[in-house]
């Protein structure tokens, strides 16, 4: 597939970002619907793929960008619950579980995906902030602006209580500036390394003097603010922090920095040449940093629906765990006897062990992502999670010794062995294809498929033994290399 792929620097940047249209040679189907769902959401459930196939790429993208009907209403409830969760004594763990619930069942996964992006971009850790309530409020700020404009978001985050604590703003005072926020603002939040000088950092820090927090929210302390003139990025004035943010937003480097980061998040982890991103940067600037517009352009484009983007990212732990759960879980109607709620709280320690502790990124640069997600330790966590999810031990807390020896079935709503019946697949080949079509739509290496078929066929299992065999196969599929790619 790569043999015919045009090198990134040979692609015409203008046509690359034009909307993709399915063709007989490259039709809309599960491969591309799954691709979109992995990027714009947390992976597809079986029903999502069926729906997406019917709606087509434009219809499903509209649905993802706007959220499901009623998602706004749901959000109000979710936010209320979050407030309560954060106030509890074990608020830190409660909040992680709360957010995972919102990602899985909030009705607006793309919005939550962007909240995750911004959480990583403005990486703030509860390890230093200590207050779940402040972390919760920051999470809400990120959500309010997730698909909005970057300018207001950057202004809001500069006055965010958790951020002010995180980067030592209270010790930034007239005469003794603390450069922490000013530096990260330029290096990591907007301009990127190489687009400002050490002097810009020092001057900007002066502008932020007196931008303090009382432990709840933003509090300006005029007595400790340096009101004198500063020169930042070549412009001079008697500025405060808001002015510095404004000057930063006027810099073309800001759009370039953000577009590149969003491209890595949504399209591909293979670094693109600047020229390929230039049309996006231009419209991002022209639209006053309209994030939703930029994301729509990316996710509708010919470049997105190409081998330059297909499986060109490594799933983050959140994407890996939630994606696997969405594929395994079936949400029956609550009146159906098969209905089971999804106990999302058991997912949180798994995601953490894979290296992504929500609300606690490793440092202000966030999770490095990409290949760094996969080392021997985290790879093993993924494989062990796959076994627990596929065979059902994930949901039994704590799993008893006798339980693991038995061939007990998980509840149907949480049982991946439902799939053959749902797809009316009985032959090993058909069962293998049904599994691959749901978990890795777009196919896998032919010899890997052959091994899977042979595994399912060995000894001709039937009935409960076949169900057990299917679960074992799902374990292997969730652990396989293709499944690690988004």
């Amino acid at each position, binding site marked *: 597939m*790569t*043999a015919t792929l045009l090198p990134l620097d040979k692609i015409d940047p203008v046509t690359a970002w034009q909307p993709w249209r399915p063709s007989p040679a490259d039709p809309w189907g599960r491969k591309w619907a799954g691709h979109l769902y992995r990027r714009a959401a947390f992976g597809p459930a079986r029903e999502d793929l069926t729906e997406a196939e019917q709606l087509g790429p434009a219809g499903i993208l509209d649905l993802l960008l706007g959220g499901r009907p009623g998602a706004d209403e749901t959000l109000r409830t979710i936010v209320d619950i979050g407030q309560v969760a954060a106030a509890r004594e074990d608020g830190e763990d409660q909040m992680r579980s709360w957010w995972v619930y919102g990602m899985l069942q909030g009705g607006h996964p793309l919005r939550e995906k962007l909240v995750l992006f911004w959480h990583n971009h403005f990486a703030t850790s509860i390890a230093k902030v200590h207050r779940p309530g402040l972390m919760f409020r920051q999470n809400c700020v990120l959500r309010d602006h997730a698909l909005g404009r970057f300018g207001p978001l950057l202004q809001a985050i500069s006055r965010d209580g958790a951020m002010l604590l995180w980067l*030592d703003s209270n*010790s930034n*005072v007239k005469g*003794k500036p*603390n*450069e*922490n926020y000013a*530096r990260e603002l330029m*290096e990591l939040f907007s301009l990127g*390394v190489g687009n400002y000088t*050490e002097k810009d950092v020092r001057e900007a820090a002066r502008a932020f003097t007196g931008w303090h927090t009382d432990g709840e929210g933003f509090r300006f302390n005029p007595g400790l603010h340096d009101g004198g003139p500063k020169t930042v990025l070549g412009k001079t004035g008697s500025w405060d922090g808001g002015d510095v943010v404004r000057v930063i937003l006027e810099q073309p480097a800001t759009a370039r920095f953000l577009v590149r980061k969003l491209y890595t998040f949504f399209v591909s982890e293979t670094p693109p040449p600047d020229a390929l991103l230039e049309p996006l940067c231009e419209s991002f600037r022209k639209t006053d940093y309209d994030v939703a517009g930029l994301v729509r352009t990316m996710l509708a484009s010919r470049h997105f629906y190409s081998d330059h983007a297909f*499986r*060109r990212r*490594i799933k983050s732990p959140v994407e890996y765990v939630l994606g696997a759960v969405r594929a395994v879980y079936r949400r029956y109607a609550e009146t159906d006897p098969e209905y089971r709620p999804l106990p999302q709280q058991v997912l949180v320690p798994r995601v953490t*062990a894979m*290296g992504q502790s929500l609300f606690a990124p*490793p*440092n202000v640069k966030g999770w490095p992502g990409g*290949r760094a*997600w*996969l*080392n*021997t*330790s*985290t*790879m*093993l*966590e993924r*494989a*062990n999670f796959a*076994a627990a999810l*596929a*065979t*059902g*031990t*994930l949901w039994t807390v704590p*799993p008893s010794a006798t*339980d*693991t*020896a038995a*061939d*007990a079935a998980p509840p149907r709503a949480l049982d991946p062995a439902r799939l053959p019946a749902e797809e009316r697949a009985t032959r090993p080949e058909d069962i293998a294809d049904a599994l691959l079509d749901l978990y890795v739509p777009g196919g896998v*290496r032919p010899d*890997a498929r052959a*091994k*899977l078929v042979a*595994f399912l066929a060995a000894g001709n299992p039937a009935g409960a033994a076949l169900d*057990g065999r299917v*679960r*074992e*196969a799902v*374990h*292997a*599929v969730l*652990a*396989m*290399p293709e499944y690690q*790619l988004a």
Partner: protein
Amino acid sequence: MFTRRQFLTRTLRGSSLVALGTVVPQFIAQTARAAAPGKDRILVVVELAGGNDGLNTVIPYADDLYHKARPTLRRTKDTVIRLGDHVGLHSGMRGMQALWDQGHLAVVQGVGYPNPDRSHFEAMDIWQSADPKRATPTGWLGRASAGIDNRSGGVPALHIGPGRLPMALTGAPGGAVSVGDQNSFRLEMGRGGADRQADRRKLLGELAAPAGGPGEYDLLSFVQRRQVQTLTAVEDLRDLLEGPNAVRGYGGGLQQKLQLVAGLIARGFGTRIFYASLDGFDTHADQASSHQRLLAELADAVGSFFQALKTTGHDGRVQLLTFSEFGRRVQENGSRGTDHGAASCLFVAGPAVRGGVVGRHPSLSDLDAGDLKFHTDFRRVYATLLDGWLGCESKAVMGDQWGHVAELEPKG
């Protein structure tokens, strides 16, 4: 120590390993070739993350300018562990005093590089890639492992810690291994009969195996290699961590991490580059107590590490290097802390080290924008350890031939 036969049986025992494709035969060949107990030299690198305040680590207690610059953080003549008439170690570092007294500790002062970067991330990457121009995407230890005869079970370099693989270890052929302290390092199979285990492990190995082809694109091959490596390392480490003579002290802080390294060395695991880190040195505010605690954790860990190695008779083939991304500003800030600085000190420890203070303390009157000036480029330290200790050509690792720091050449 393992015999060649034990290595082979252990390696081939898991049926999954037989089916792991092209990577494994090479790994077995390597193991077989190297199964004789090695007397290879080992380098352990300890990263002090956050920017250690070198000025309050190796303290110029006799310098008035020091006391002026550090009105609340200063340590006096009576409280330091004196290394001579001019400098002394912070009193938290008593755990390393025995190493100093025995002449097993080199204290290298004024280490840095031109145009120092004061961003944590940039500076950390510079130290780890050994490239201040930031043009090199891989780490110095990862690249070095390519040139080192690797006698371990396919693990050229081992990172002990829960986080991501440090940049310093990236670029190792076959990939360096990270051992977290959160998981038990066991391959779980969930629910299912014991009779199914072998078939299931075999399938995991088969699905991970490289399909064999230049047709496969990079990212997928990368994941495949990672997976094969994980399955093999799991088998191998399990034995060391939970076998009949399990290595003790797994999990926890720096002391436990280094104890695990000492145990692995004693058991003949064969990896020659180990890496662990201690975080928390970004002491912008109220530095005194946290810095004391961190230095004590470092010194106790390093001291007991060499004690453990001495007991098993392996101390002579181990050197330990500490580093941090930068030192801190000479003048303390208004929050009884210190801000990001430049040049700093580092330690090289081990019985094969020529103990003593290396280089003069940087001047406190001749500063660069409030920061200490370096006189010893850190790449000279690396070159000395690579050429002189690990027997790995430093020019191949760093591109240029850096002069050695004579005092850091190994004894004998």
